[in-house]
């Protein structure tokens, strides 16, 4: 006990007398005196500009939490399950553009992060996960709460490291943040044994970092760019296929400029929603399995496809050999390994989307594509997204459409995974980047609500809403208490069809309607929300929808759970069944 008090005083003294050492600290500030590993960690986080971290303590991370007790300017948000910490870090990162941080103890704490870290890997979200590990002498002995976390997370992190000396912590942290946010962003995990956190050291805080095996290429080859521009200028049916890489690179303005200069239509992936204003006349909305008919027809008929920051995911392409069979592909990506991975690229360009598109927008010549636009507009008129409203049943799509209108498409939306996610993707017309946060690649149920919390902590002045399904919400619902505790103005709309809707839909279409384990018995989400200290609203009839949405959006200083009982039989259309091509698209009616 005495030692702990002494430690705390020591830190307080150091903090108050320390010069303002920011990320641009001068060399004399690189040494910060004697401290333990955990204090070095907290100081390193502070120097990275970390303001919020999401986490849950435990035995192996006790020294870290002790150091956090004294941390100035770093807010620790205590979650009730580590999965929430990882999802919140992703929501924080994707909404704000800054690196999200989560922390967990060894063993079960760290393994609970795994789903969230995998989501960050699949969707290229920059997060740093800090985990406690059992003390060095017992590593490998199957100690209490031991798990080989660097081994477990090797395939799901951009990089991970087990730090074996306290003095190495500052460099490991600096490198972790650098790797997480540069190149193709992704998760990095730093595993710190408890005795390393306790070890005294005199750390140096590096300003620069040199990683010999890591040099992202940011400027595209001028020759390749020239070839690409020539191909686009001569195209008759060109299209831009734009994805999450545009948002990571902050290239929305450049993308829009290129599209406007050339009048080439733009189709967005799920991860690319927000890369371009979806109400822009050149934007064809989302393509892919549940994308717009016109975007899918257009890409399949295209003769030149400019793919930017995309990875030709199977949810976009369907059966690969039938995807855009007549097209030449120009593929821009910062990750060379994505180019040619699924579809051969005729003109590969490795580089940062913003830099490459800026050059292209400045030099592009517009192709003659009036006939192409005539065709696209015909498809657009003939196959709009649509929904019907049955009497006495609340339509999911109507709720999504209304949320779009009430927020003007400018709120940050997070979703879970399933039907409601696709309906939001179809009906919510993002006006700006970083407004649509969803688990795209991994498809992790339980993501939506924690991601919304993270987004709200990252962007407290922006309107953030969560749209979740009844199935996914139940997976992380316990953290309503966290949102309530922090008084977050956070409306959570539960599109409740008492089913795992997408599973039920596939069973309906492809398994002869045998609804195996897809029908749910649910609690009363509104009352459950109230039990957690949130506001709760239950919606059972169509005429209650709009007043409820308005009330929730206006609720301040407290989360609001809106339980909306929706049509239990609605299917999400259009749909290109998994592994098939556009010819097999199921249309609405």
């Amino acid at each position, binding site marked *: 006990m005495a030692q702990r008090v002494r430690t705390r005083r020591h830190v307080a003294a150091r903090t108050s007398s320390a010069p303002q050492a920011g990320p641009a600290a001068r060399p004399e500030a690189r040494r910060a005196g004697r401290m333990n590993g955990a204090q070095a960690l907290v100081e390193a986080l502070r120097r990275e500009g970390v303001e919020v971290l999401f986490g849950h303590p435990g035995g192996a991370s006790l020294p870290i939490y002790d150091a956090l007790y004294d941390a100035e300017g770093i807010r620790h948000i205590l979650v009730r399950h580590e999965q929430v910490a990882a999802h919140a870090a992703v929501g924080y990162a994707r909404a704000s553009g800054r690196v999200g941080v989560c922390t967990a103890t060894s063993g079960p704490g760290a393994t609970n992060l795994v789903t969230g870290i995998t989501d960050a890997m699949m969707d290229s979200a920059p997060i740093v996960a800090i985990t406690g590990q059992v003390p060095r002498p017992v590593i490998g002995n199957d100690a209490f709460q031991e798990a080989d976390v*660097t*081994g477990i997370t*090797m*395939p799901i992190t*951009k*990089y991970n490291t*087990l730090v074996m000396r306290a003095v190495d912590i500052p460099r490991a942290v600096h490198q972790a943040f650098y*790797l997480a946010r540069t190149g193709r962003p992704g998760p990095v995990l730093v595993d710190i044994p408890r005795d390393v956190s306790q070890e005294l050291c005199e750390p140096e805080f590096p300003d620069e970092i040199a*990683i*010999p*095996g*890591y040099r992202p290429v940011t400027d595209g080859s001028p020759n390749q760019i020239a070839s690409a521009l020539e191909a686009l200028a001569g195209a008759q049916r060109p299209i831009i296929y734009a994805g999450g890489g545009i948002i990571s690179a902050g290239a929305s303005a450049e993308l829009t400029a290129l599209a406007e200069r050339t009048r080439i239509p733009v189709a967005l992936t799920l991860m690319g929603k927000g890369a371009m204003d979806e109400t822009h006349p050149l934007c064809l909305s989302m393509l892919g399995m549940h994308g717009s008919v016109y975007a899918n027809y257009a890409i399949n008929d295209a003769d030149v496809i400019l793919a930017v920051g995309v990875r030709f995911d199977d949810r976009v392409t369907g059966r690969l050999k039938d995807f855009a069979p007549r097209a030449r592909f120009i593929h821009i990506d910062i*990750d*060379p*390994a994505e180019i*040619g*991975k699924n579809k051969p690229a005729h003109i590969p360009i490795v580089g940062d989307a913003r830099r490459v598109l800026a050059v292209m927008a400045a030099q592009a010549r517009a192709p003659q594509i009036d006939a192409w636009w005539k065709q696209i507009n015909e498809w657009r008129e003939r196959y709009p997204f649509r929904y019907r409203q049955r009497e006495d049943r609340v339509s999911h799509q109507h709720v999504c459409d209304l949320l779009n209108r009430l927020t003007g498409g400018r709120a940050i939306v997070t979703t879970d995974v399933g039907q409601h996610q696709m309906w939001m993707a179809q009906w919510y017309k993002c006006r700006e980047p970083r407004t649509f946060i969803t688990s795209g690649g991994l498809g992790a149920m339980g993501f939506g609500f924690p991601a919304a919390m993270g987004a709200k902590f990252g962007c407290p002045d922006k309107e953030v809403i969560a749209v979740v399904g009844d199935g996914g919400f139940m997976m992380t619902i316990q953290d309503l208490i966290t949102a309530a505790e922090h008084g977050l103005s956070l409306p959570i709309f539960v599109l409740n069809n008492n089913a795992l809707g997408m599973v039920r839909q596939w069973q309906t279409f492809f398994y002869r309607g045998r609804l195996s384990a897809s029908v749910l018995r649910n609690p009363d989400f509104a009352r459950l929300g109230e039990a957690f200290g949130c506001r709760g609203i239950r919606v059972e009839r169509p005429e209650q929808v709009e007043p409820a949405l308005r009330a929730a959006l206006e609720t301040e200083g407290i989360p609001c759970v809106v339980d909306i009982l929706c049509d239990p039989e609605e299917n999400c259309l259009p749909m290109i069944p998994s592994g098939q091509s556009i010819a097999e698209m199921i249309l609405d009616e």
Partner: protein
Amino acid sequence: MSEEHHAATISVLVQNAPGVLVRVAGLIRRRGVNIHSLSVGPTEDPKISRMTIVVDTPPDRTESFAKQLRKLVEVLRATAVDGTPTVDRELALIKVNVTPGTRLEIMEIANVFRANIVDLTDRTMSLEVTGRSEKVDAFVSLLTKYGIREMARTGQVTLARGPQNT
């Protein structure tokens, strides 16, 4: 091993750090590629090791696979060396049964393959042979009829011919 696959050689320079072998091997497994052989050893720079990996990949996937390897932070260089002139070598130690009647015969075969006898007892002979994998294979198959008791092969190592780096 399906027919359209072939053995592609990828030479990888890595930082000599803990866990690098696991990262490389894990990546190969994750991408569903079968490892023929993998050899690791130091280079002229003690901080850098070279791995020579022979994998079964379809020819058009080899470069894509090398790109995945380059994404590992500790990987400094990964080159698919197929199509460039190379020197490839593998070493094998083979312990074979001998009798007074077969000893000379085996020594004659060893002589043709320029293999060295590195151990000899009244019942066994250990041979060391170096060469391209095909040569080692041929040597092994000639020795099979005498009864191979044990064998250890290093896996292939490769360097590009001439002044260019591998």
